[in-house]
């Protein structure tokens, strides 16, 4: 590319191509999705096992791993942000959206679980589905979009499942909605760097 003068049609084509190229450069190695997904899967499965073993008093203990995972994710992206070459609106928007939704899920899960009663897991899944669908559309990634739709359907199906099995649904949703898309993002990033 040089500094030659352009015709109007060439200018318009150049603007379109450059904007598309710059916008498509969403760079993420899927770290947050994989870490949060694995922690959420382990915590949900842990709660499911504790409930089955009738440890009702401590059944929610495994979820204390989630604020730790959230903090690790926050510091990871803080550190990465200092090294990152550029910021684009999609990355910033998804980062803020993820943080807001994550905080809301933790507040709901830790402080208002009794108010939500059996609607807690469906609520968590609907929030997760919204996050996944928005992410999928923004970064044009079908895996995130399809996972979001699947988690959304699971959210409403959960109402027909006994409450003691809800943690198992959450564990499955963590794999479908977080771990799988995170791994796919990680693989695609590695391929792009080959």
């Amino acid at each position, binding site marked *: *590319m040089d500094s030659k003068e352009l015709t109007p049609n060439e200018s318009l084509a150049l603007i379109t191509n450059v904007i598309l190229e710059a916008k498509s450069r969403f760079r993420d190695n899927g770290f947050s999705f994989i870490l949060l997904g694995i922690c959420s899967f382990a915590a949900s499965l842990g709660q499911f096992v504790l409930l089955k073993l009738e440890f009702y008093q401590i059944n929610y203990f495994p979820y204390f791993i989630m604020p730790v995972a959230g903090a690790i994710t926050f510091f990871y992206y803080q550190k990465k942000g200092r090294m990152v070459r550029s910021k684009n609106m999609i990355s910033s928007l998804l980062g803020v959206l993820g943080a807001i939704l994550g905080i809301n899920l933790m507040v709901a899960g830790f402080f208002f679980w009794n108010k939500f009663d059996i609607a807690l897991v469906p609520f968590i899944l609907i929030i997760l589905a919204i996050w996944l669908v928005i992410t999928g559309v923004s970064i044009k990634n079908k895996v995130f979009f399809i996972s979001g739709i699947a988690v959304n359907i699971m959210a409403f199906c959960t109402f027909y499942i006994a409450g003691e099995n809800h943690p198992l649904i959450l564990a499955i949703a963590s794999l479908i909605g977080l771990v799988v898309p995170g791994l796919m993002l990680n693989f695609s990033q590695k391929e792009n760097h080959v």
Partner: protein
Amino acid sequence: MYKDLDPLLHSQLRLAIVSILMTGESADFNQIMDITKATSGNISVQIKKLQDAGYIEVVKSFKNNYQNTALKITNKGIKAFENYVECLKQYIK
């Protein structure tokens, strides 16, 4: 030839730089090089022209002991780009 078109933006590389900056909050020198595939010397010259016109801001800093040049479009630059696109539409009609 195209009198209404801002001569500062009506150049391949300068238009590409401003278009990149229109998509995000900021971009750095390496990203501009990456997308435009232009040489660093040519990019530096065009950045200087855009900076002198007040279309972009250049912030030099150090990141991990490496010099980093971050570029950001100014309000004047946004307005100039919008006017440029409006003029383009008139020519293409």
